[in-house]
């Protein structure tokens, strides 16, 4: 390689890196400015909403879509908030819990699916859903770094945290999906006729399979997050309760019993509602095998209300 070629090539590489690096920071701060205005929508809006209300709420529910769709926290407290987000798991919940105010009494409900606790493959990558605030929040940065999911690209191009969220931000800046002042994070499913038909067909043609795992050793990362949540809650006057929301049919109960046993050992309060509707399993309570309809969700929320409000 002669010197002229080397010089021109290096110039090209440096120019591309420099130009994109500078532009990245401009875009990053612009997106920060815009996204801070977004308080509706699941990707950014709900997180922003949580951040501005976390100091004032007294009941908060965490988990995946089975939290978001099933738990009406308003039934438990008028200052309740549902922070359930599709596709998230224990790492995401634990990180958000650590962002709650210190020394403030709050009830923390974490909805877990017991099978997930025993999956070897769980790597805590759901915490990456918070990467939009990686360079802005120390707790989030620490938790993402902690699971060793180094995203070298994002360390250079900060705005990569907005990957897949750009259109959502722009849309919600100008046309908010809902009025956040009347939103508490709970999104019940109003099942339409087509969805009912699909679920009925599914039940008609599918055989219930016994879906047990080969072994029941709790994933070490999962166990770590359970302990982290427990320690944080104990140190900061919070009541931590883990639950499992109802399932249409839970053919394998080994994971439930093993999970219950482990939580007892580590002294975390846990209630398994997976069979809540086993005696009275009406179709109107369900959207599919794992999601309750709005009617089912209300019955389930009443049950939680009885559990939490009465003794407190």
């Amino acid at each position, binding site marked *: 390689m002669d010197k002229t*070629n080397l010089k021109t*090539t290096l110039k*090209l590489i440096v120019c*591309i890196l420099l130009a994109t690096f500078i532009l990245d920071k401009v875009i990053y701060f612009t997106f920060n400015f815009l996204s801070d205005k977004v308080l509706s929508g*699941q990707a950014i809006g709900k997180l922003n909403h949580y951040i501005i209300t976390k100091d004032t709420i007294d009941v908060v529910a965490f988990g995946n879509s089975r939290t978001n769709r099933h738990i009406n926290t308003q039934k438990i407290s008028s200052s309740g908030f549902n922070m359930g987000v*599709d596709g998230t798991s224990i790492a995401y919940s634990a990180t958000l819990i650590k962002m709650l105010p210190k020394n403030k009494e709050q009830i923390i409900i974490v909805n877990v699916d017991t099978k997930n606790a025993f999956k070897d493959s769980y790597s805590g990558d759901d915490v990456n859903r918070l990467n939009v605030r990686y360079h802005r929040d120390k707790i989030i940065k620490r938790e993402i770094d902690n699971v060793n999911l180094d995203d070298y690209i994002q360390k250079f191009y900060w705005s*990569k945290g907005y*990957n*897949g969220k750009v*259109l959502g931000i722009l849309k919600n800046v100008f046309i908010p999906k809902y009025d956040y002042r009347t939103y508490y994070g709970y999104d019940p499913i109003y099942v339409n006729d087509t969805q009912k038909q699909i679920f009925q067909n599914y039940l008609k043609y599918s055989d219930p399979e016994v879906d047990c795992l080969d072994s029941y050793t709790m994933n070490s990362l999962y166990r770590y997050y359970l302990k982290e949540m427990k320690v944080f809650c104990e140190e900061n006057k919070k009541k931590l309760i883990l639950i499992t929301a109802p399932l249409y049919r839970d053919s394998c109960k080994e994971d439930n019993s093993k999970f219950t046993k482990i939580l007892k050992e580590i002294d975390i309060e846990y209630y398994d509602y997976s069979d809540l509707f086993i005696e009275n399993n009406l179709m109107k309570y369900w959207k599919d095998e794992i999601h309750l309809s709005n009617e089912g969700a209300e019955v389930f929320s009443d049950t939680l209300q009885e559990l939490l409000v009465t003794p407190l």
Partner: protein
Amino acid sequence: MFFNSIDFFIFLLIVFLLYWLVVYKNLKFQNVLIVIASYIFYGWWDWRFLSLIALSTIVDYIVGFRVYETRNLLFKKRWLWVSIVFNLGLLGFFKYYNFFIESWVDLFSSVGYEFQSTRTLQVILPVGISFYTFQTLSYSIDIYRGKLKPTRDFIAFAAFVSFFPQLVAGPIERATNLVPQFLHKRTFTYKTFSYGIKLMIWGFFLKLVVADRAAIYVNAVYNNVDNHDGLTFIAATILFAFQIYGDFAGYSLIAIGVSKLFGFELMTNFKRPYFSASVSEFWTRWHISLSTWFRDYLYIPLGGNRVGKFRWLFNLFITFLISGLWHGSNWTFVVWGALNGLYLTLEILVFKKKRKGLINVLFTFVLINFSWIFFRANSIENAFYIIKKVFTSPGHLYIGSGDDITASLYATLAIAILLVVEMKKEYFNTIFSISNNKSELIRLIGYAVLIYMILYFGVFGKSQFIYFQF
């Protein structure tokens, strides 16, 4: 090692610097470096299968000489058969053994005979085996045909067989094009380098934005066929057409771009296939390296079109049937290949003139999409179920929820960009003007825009390229 992984970028940077700054004065050392790098690249998946590449290299290196030096035509042919049997034997064992055993058992059980025991094996398919076996076969066949002299330089030959940019998913290079490049000194030019980078960026856009965004909707539909209706299957199939194009053309562009960084020229693998006005034209634009391989080493030896009409049509059909089987050991691929063979034979019988115009482009696109149903469906039963739904039950269009909607929106946006860029080249013979602008500043902006589109709209993670499974 995936092209879309940080591991690959670190690997590429190290190899590139060593290649041009340390061993650049010595051709032999450069080739040695390519062989070592290629074996590391491949061994990243499964080092055990390196032995297959090494074995294939040794066998075809020896066979090449034997074929060339043997005067007796019969012995020449026998040596060629050694290469054919060895390479196709490898492919047959690793890729098709279980498929044929299972199909055989199914066939007998359909007529009421049940086997007491069958010997299927837990064989892992070595990545890229279909590609490198075809590449080495072309070397032996071309020597047999007198188109190529065998190389004495074993390292250069090993580099040809294992050249990492195209080792696992092509383009399937001809020995006549690639082997000579390993025997001559490569020179670094800024122009080639920057063009290579540009191809890589566009390739990543096709893979990470077009293909991987489209895949989210396609997988949601095709992996849950019971829950969807005709309109949804049509939308998913159209998206799949762009998914597979983005995935494979993206891979090919990255491979060609990376090769340019090292001073190599690989063949073009895709030429805007969805602008074809007939299926026969489509096959001159889609996976060109494979289509021409089948043309030169199967279709023409069968007689090509220099035979009677019936035999000609049979040659075409059988070539596509085998091409379908090459793609995968599943009946869905066999039907896909047969369907394309059928399209071509019908085109010859029905249309006498070369077809042109937008209507024919759209009609061809529909036919190709119909065949993609078989290519993508998880089973033959699923494919027929989808077709039945398309024609009998349009139903509602599934939009998805949350992330699915966003993914479909990004995919649609990316496809629109792809179509505009390709349309410009196809109909106005100009390529994307920003990244080809004379002004360096504007070119820089062009690169930056593409990089940012990948950053904001791409799917990051280690998603595999579809053609790796073949």
